[in-house]
């Protein structure tokens, strides 16, 4: 692989653009296929068409083309996790989520919590959750978790999350807290169906107690939700 090819793949990833690296198995000839352009020598029409299909599906595969056997390596932007509340549980959840491959963004307007030293190597936004969420625009590959317990901070974030395409919305709090939250959000115009999207109490029930255990239960629930959507067939086979 040419060094400039490697750097172009990294640049695409850093700017959250999907890209396919087409590579001829026989000699390593390559092309980078973007949504709107192709760079490189391996630019036969059928190779580019197959690469565009891989770009859409996000699946890497080896295909037979007029140029011979070509490996299409799809690099799609990683999923995102927006964590509202830079609290103790977040300090456990954030590094685990990053290790799992999520781009993690922590949001908390409180300076003492949203200190960079508490969250090395991830984006920490010291902002009001509704403003940050409006700008971040949760999409179908974004998970949102609220952890503050404070309605002033959690509720505005949930209002944006529940009207977005976020694949997972979770909110920390007991059953009673969750009932009160429901009353407030329905008053604010959230529908029953929208509220029903919230995973609350948050996380898989594994009897988690410590911040790290709760973080594991939340991350496990997020992983389960995502694989059920992205790999429904495989998951069904495994469940059977």
């Amino acid at each position, binding site marked *: *692989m*040419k*060094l400039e090819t*490697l*750097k172009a*793949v*990294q640049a695409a*990833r*850093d700017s959250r653009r999907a890209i396919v690296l087409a*590579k001829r*198995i026989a*000699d*390593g000839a390559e092309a980078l296929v973007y949504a709107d352009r192709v760079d490189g020598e391996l630019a036969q029409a059928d190779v580019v068409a197959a690469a565009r299909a891989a770009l859409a599906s996000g*699946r*890497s*595969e*080896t295909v037979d083309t007029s140029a011979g056997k070509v*490996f299409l*390596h*799809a690099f799609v932007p*990683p999923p995102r996790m927006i964590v509202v509340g830079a609290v103790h549980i977040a300090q456990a959840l954030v*590094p685990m989520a*990053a*290790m*799992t*491959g*999520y*781009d*993690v963004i922590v949001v908390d307007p409180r300076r003492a919590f949203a200190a960079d030293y508490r969250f*090395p*190597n*991830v984006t920490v936004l010291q902002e009001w959750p509704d403003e940050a969420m409006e700008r971040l625009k949760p999409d179908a590959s974004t998970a949102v978790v609220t952890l503050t317990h404070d309605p002033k901070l959690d509720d505005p974030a949930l209002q944006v999350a529940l009207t977005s395409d976020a694949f997972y919305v979770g909110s920390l709090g007991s059953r009673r807290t969750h009932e009160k939250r429901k009353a407030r959000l329905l008053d604010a115009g959230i529908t029953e169906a929208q509220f029903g999207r919230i995973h609350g109490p948050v996380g898989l029930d594994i009897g988690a107690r410590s911040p790290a255990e709760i973080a594991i239960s939340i991350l496990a629930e997020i992983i389960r939700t995502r694989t059920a959507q992205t790999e429904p067939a495989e998951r069904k086979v495994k469940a059977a």
Partner: protein
Amino acid sequence: MTAAAEDILGTAAAWKAEGRGVALATVTLTWGSSPRPVGSQLVVDQDGNMMGSVSGGCIEGAVVKEAVEAIGDGKPRLLDFGVTDEQAWDVGLACGGKVQVFVERVG
């Protein structure tokens, strides 16, 4: 991108910048139960240091050996591992799956 996530291409670029010889191994095909999906990568330097994986640890040894040779001669290689394969049996692909790995020098 966070530094905590395993960044194989970032490691390849960093090793290259240090002046090391570097190769990338990529899973290009799988059959049956294989532990790592198509697209999984392993980065190797000329001394056999490695990051990432192309299996559950079953074939990395053999892949590293080929990668070090690819760093030396610059030729890409396509490696097949599977239970029907004498060599794979030796390196112990115990999952019963088959996997094809493309190895090439970086730069």
